[in-house]
């Protein structure tokens, strides 16, 4: 499981995430994990989702492209519940 809704209900894509804005988040830290966590804070606020520990890392959230891939996975129903 990569995501869950806060309410635990069915997952719907509420809005598009602006990856150009996301790229501006977490730029003050050099620590890859901390940067991923700050981006996770933003993503969860915008999309109203809860990310699992599995994706709270630099690999999944380190770049806007990686996040876009992750969200595409989610949107296609492969990673959600």
């Amino acid at each position, binding site marked *: 499981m990569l995501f869950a809704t806060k309410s635990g209900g069915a997952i719907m894509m*509420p809005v598009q995430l602006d990856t150009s804005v996301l790229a*501006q988040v977490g730029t003050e830290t050099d620590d890859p994990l901390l940067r991923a966590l700050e981006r*996770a804070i933003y993503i969860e606020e915008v999309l109203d989702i*809860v990310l699992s520990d599995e994706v*709270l890392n630099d690999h999944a959230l380190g770049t806007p492209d990686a996040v876009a891939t992750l969200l595409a996975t989610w949107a296609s129903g492969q990673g959600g519940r």
Partner: protein
Amino acid sequence: MCGICGIVAVSPKVESSPRVEQLWAMMGALRHRGPDGSGYFVDDHAALGHTRLAIVDTANGEQPMCNEDARIWVSYNGEIFNHVELRAQLRDRGHEFRTQCDTEVIVHAWEEWGPDSFNRFNGQWAIALWDRAAENLILCRDRYGVRPLYYTHAAGRFLFASEIKALFTAPEVSREFDPVGLDQTLTFWSPVAPRTPYAGVSQVPPGSFLVVGQGSEELVRYWTPEFGEPDRSAAGDLDEQAEGVRERLIEATRLRFERSDVPVGAYLSGGIDSSVTASIIGSLTDVDLHTFSLRFTDKEFDEGSYQRRLVDRLGTNHREIEVSERDIAEVFPEVVWHGEHPLLRTAPAPMFLLSRLVHDCGYKVVVTGEGADEVLAGYDVFREAKVREFWARNPDSAVRSRAVELLYPWMARSPNLAPAFSAGFFGRNLSLNDPALSHRPRWDSTAGLKSMLAEPYRVATPSAAADELLATMPAGSDRWTTLGKAQWLEMSTLLPGYILASQGDRMLMANSVEGRFPFLDVELGRYASELPSQHKILGLDEKHLLKRGFADLVPDEIRHRPKQPYRAPDAASFFAADSPDWVGDVTSADAIEQSGVFRPEIVDRLLTKVRRNQGRGLSNTDNMRLVAVLSTQLLSGQIQQRYDAGAPPVPCGVFDFRTRSRRPS
């Protein structure tokens, strides 16, 4: 900016007609708020007093002032910045004006619109309106509580004033501390209106007006901060929102610089808020801008390099004052006298010295950056709220707690300490349903402060202060974002009670200087409250839209510098080898016992610890405990003794509106 006071007879059963001698004493206690003149109105039921700091239409504008038929009288402290526009509207409706003062706009606005007037005002005010026909007194405070307004009852009379010391000139008024007010102060740094630190003395809450009639009092809230529900589908464009903040702040700053008949200066702290307002004036106008800054001899607190960078860039006529620990100790009794509230920090003391510099330079008005952190989300507690919310969404997560390290750089540098601290402090009571998710760790950690209180001043329920405050949150606030709730809490506690009062109005007015606050402009506030939380703090970048909107005016070094909350040396100021005598006097065993506020054995242990290293190396809590003891002990002596020494000085230039003649003092 001025001082106001008054007396209204509210009991038909006793002889309670207002006494002019009492009014004069109250006005005398407010002389520092209005050294340029004074006046009073009196009839059989009410008396209104006024001490004036002349800023708008300085040649006219004596108060109290009345409408065309002398039915409505006003005594007013503040500025209505949109008075020019309101005057035009009122003229169109047939009202006649004798002056160019904003004061006169108030009486005609009341005639025309009644209480809805307050919704139309853009400014900072404490207003007393006496309606002779209705025999009603209306007391009103501005939305954010910039200007103070206190009241009490004594011997069948209702008394009000800009400062509590004016109420204490009436011998019938009790001068006892209120246990709940003290408990709130030790929790939130200030009492929550309508409470004050004193039993029997209340304050008109921000955004409210009080109607006082014969045997009746009605408190009406005309405004409260409101925040939207999360609306992710309409988050909007970051650049457009930054531009929206910019436009409104430029207009708010322009109003506050232009609407004055005396020169207006600007504070420059070195942080982004005052840098923005000074840059707006310095870069977008051709005025000869005078700026004023605070320096510290202790480099830990000094922001001089940032101030100098902006001064050089703007080419302002700049003055600064350097404050030492000794300076703070020397002025602290006077600071407490003017502040009237127990303090947990010494930070007001340097602000007192800064306003004295402004006064000595011949300035009466300064624009400052207060309010930016509350309106545009700049405080650390807001960032903490985001991290706690993130953590609370999955408290069992193995990695979410690490987000705490994003808050403070020292945590990332202390890998052994950070997990324990974050779990112990930020990880407590993680509940998404808690309306105080943001503030709970801080409130819960005040037990050490409250444990100092002696039995008569201890509140039975430790969470009483928080419970009482949360019960007043507006209907529908449960749907606000966590940031919105946190902003409301700040705007209901620290902003009006400490930032704008103990550290703001009192420290400015002690030296007859008016502060103006562009970030508390009504239009900016309205716009900012509707901005999405995720943009106000982008990730964990606080005040992001402000930084983004003024990228061209404020240097990157200032926009992107780590946030440095304004602080001053605390305990170390009082326990150096050359500390002033008053420190020993107010902390002696006899003094502690006499005031009865604190447990002697606890204070004794605290003082032993503080003296061991001359006040250095103390924990945050111990620093606050010490300043709380010193300030409360000073207050205890001041309120009991100072008024017994004699009546305050009689104001000069009293104008008696009963005879329509000017009377000498």
